[in-house]
């Protein structure tokens, strides 16, 4: 799964119930509630292996009752790599509900000239609603139409559907719960807890199932800059550190 910012990665990988600026961009719908421009970058080295590393850059521009988002992710190395670029727009349908749609361009390639680059355009959509001032419920679908690559053996790009919530347990503590269904893998459960001190310092922990992953992280806000460090631990394969930096202006 592409990274969704240090905050989400340290909470077991939750995404749809997040309200932090960087996480909201990846949620798609959540970006509609942003009031400032956001520019974020992140890096992850999965299992400490450069071949599985991610780099991401994201930008959100609030405009009227909605926001435009631009997101770019690179995965892998010169031997095998994948890229994803997304242009999204999210709009607040009413003060409590937001809807987002994104156009995704996917590309994969290898260093072997026998295997040509593959390109594909698909889309994703998300919805987020806030029934109470403490609760956020969200849903996000990537590639809902299950579009397939047009190759000799048509390969269907997986569809991923995430449904989850974020809840303010108290002023300093937030809980997150998410269910993810991937068309190629079993159902996955993600959950996490975040503690914040005065909205300046965060400590987070979480876990996910199928496969089992533990995660933890720290966040710090310095004026308009947010720094998030996190790590996910797979019991067999090892640790995946992640760092993200976002700037609000």
């Amino acid at each position, binding site marked *: 799964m592409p990274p969704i910012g240090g905050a989400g990665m340290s909470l077991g990988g939750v995404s749809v119930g997040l309200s932090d600026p960087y996480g909201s961009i990846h949620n798609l719908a959540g970006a509609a509630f942003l009031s400032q421009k956001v520019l974020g970058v992140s890096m992850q080295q999965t299992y400490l292996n450069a071949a599985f590393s991610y780099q991401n850059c994201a930008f959100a521009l609030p405009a009227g009752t909605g926001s435009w988002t631009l997101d770019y992710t690179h995965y892998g190395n010169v031997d095998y790599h994948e890229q994803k670029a997304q242009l999204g727009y999210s709009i607040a*349908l009413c003060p*409590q*509900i937001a809807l987002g749609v994104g156009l995704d361009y996917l590309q994969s390639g290898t260093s072997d000239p026998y295997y040509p680059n593959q390109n594909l355009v698909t889309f994703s959509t998300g919805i987020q*609603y806030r*029934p109470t001032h403490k609760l956020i*419920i969200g849903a996000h679908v990537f590639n809902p139409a299950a579009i397939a690559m047009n190759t000799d053996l048509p390969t269907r790009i997986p*569809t991923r559907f995430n*449904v989850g919530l974020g809840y303010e347990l108290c002023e300093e503590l937030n809980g997150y719960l998410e*269910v993810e*269904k991937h068309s190629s893998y079993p159902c996955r459960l993600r959950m996490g807890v975040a503690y914040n001190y005065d909205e300046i310092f965060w400590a987070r922990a979480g876990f996910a199932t199928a496969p089992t992953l533990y995660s933890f992280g720290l966040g710090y806000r310095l004026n308009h800059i947010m720094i998030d460090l996190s790590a996910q631990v797979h019991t067999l394969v090892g640790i995946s550190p992640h760092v993200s930096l976002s700037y609000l202006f």
Partner: protein
Amino acid sequence: MNKLFRCLLFICCLGIGASLQAQTDELLWQDYFEQWMEQNESEEIDEEVFEMIENLKDNPVNLNDTSSEMLLPLPFMTPFKWEALKAYIRQNGSLYSYTELSLVRGFDATTVALLRPLTIIAPVPAATHNQPNLKYMLTHGRSSFITSSRIPLQRAKGYQDSSYCGSPFGWNFRYQYRYSNRLIIQFSGDKDAGEQFFGGVQKQGFDYYGGYAMVNDWGIVKRAVVGKYQLQFGQGLTLWSGSAPWQMDGGSVWRYSTGIHSSSAFCEYGYFQGAAATLKVGKYTELTPFFSYHQCDATPIGDSMVTSLYYSGYHRTITERNKIDQVGERVFGANIHYQRDHLSMGFTGYLTHFNKPLQPTPTLYNYGIFQGQQNANIGADISYRLGDWILFGEMAFSHSDSMVADLLPVASLVGAQFFQGNSSFNCYYRYYSPTYHNFHASPLGQNAKCENEQGFGMNLHTQLPYHIQADISSDIFQYPWFRSRCYGPSVGSEYKVRLFKEVSNAFRVDVQYRYKASQRNRKEVLYKIGDTQRQQFQINASYAPDPSWHLQTRIAYTLFNEEKRVAEHGFLICQDLSYSPTSIPLTLTARYALFEVDDYDARIYSYENDLVYEFSTPAYNGQGYRFYLLLKYDVTEDIKLGFKYGRTQYFDRDVIGSGHDAIQSDHKDELKVQLRVLF
């Protein structure tokens, strides 16, 4: 309570009332339809139930001026709630708004939300002593015409190899004339996909035509009907045709019998056709004689016998067409009903005669099954209201040519029901002999047929702390004799827990857990039965912050276990969105659902919003996604259009369905269109 206070209450609650209106009324009905499907393990919801609800939506009853016959058949209404409402109106005058219903004993938020689409609150019209004559009723009523078409976008195998004789389009129409609820005239036609139309054996056009004329409250005639109709008496053991109210969580187990009522416009079997009337023969007594004759579909053996009645209504292939009108069924009898204060008693007797003998193919589970041409049914029912309790029971007998000497053909039911405030409790015991024969019964229990079942059930509805409402039900049952897919006496049990909470007027969450254990033939060992368990967990969140927007998020999981087999799992994740702008008479509803179900035994049902008088209740099986978009638009107040596009995409197969319905594709698309005209 004085009028000033009630007015202030009305004003203060106006804001809440607006949100309450935006609350998921439609979703609550959706939830109850899914319960019905789950309970009956069926993909086909009873058209009668659905049409009753849609008829009430089109012709809502005035809560300030209605009789119990209009509301008591609804599964969530009980005599206690009805009497509490009447007492409240008697004491305080007419209702002003729905928010006032929360002051009526037994009317919780769920009951109010379910009633809202089916009722109005209006002043009581001035009483008139003159009954309108027939000519007045025929010239001062209102007509409606509705026609729908179903258009599949992929061709099934049956159309490619011409096994299906007709076109793949389904089409139906219904014309109804109505003067209030006093006079109703209806005529309808239906063509299923694959059936011919104005050609072949269907030279008259549609495969099915039906209609009736019904009059209510005409002198001593409480109700009379000519044409197609249904009869419902007692608790369903002796005579109850058409839909049976399902055992709803928190609802009433005791049934309110309506006597004569209209039949669904498009139901092609299980109805009566002829004439029936309910006559007031005394202050407390009603007599209902009835007669019916119509040709039924059946599987023939030569020209002189049939093996079984055919209940699908499809006439697409030559084999299905050969079953058309193979046997004539004649039914005549009567019911006498006495009701005074808290006591209600009924006695029903009737004879069913076929003009050809039924000779079913002998099988292990057919011992004692009906054979022959004639069957007589007789039964008595009683119910008594004692304070907050209703005690009820029914006993019925059958007599036919194929009686088995060692087993008394009896069906019996006893039960009790208790209501107080927002809490209710039901318990009941039933015994249906394997040799009890009845072609027109709808009993309470696990089976659709009133035979070969014995069991004890209970359910409880109450309010827990933190305003959480709980429904808990249990049913322990056994089948004394063999049955289909189970070659031996078997036992089973079912438990259900449902918790729901209205976090706010716009936000509702409910969690359900259901467990069912039963027995059936084992696949790997012949004539040996094994245990099965099915568990289902489901969580729903629904949110409607204003009348324009409505969302529902759902996650469902099922687990099916059977002896000596690997467990099967089913998973569904689903998001609904509905938009109704206040400035345009338009409603848009969309759903996206991703599912992964290992096998049919772990299937998950999910009711879908559909066009008026259409319904869609797919059982998700396999792996893939389901998407639909529904659009309803009021061109004018009297002309309404509807469109629905649906797609089911599978990830795990290239052929959908089997036999004549097999589609050589990994996806299935369908378009439905509808036109409604009121004049």
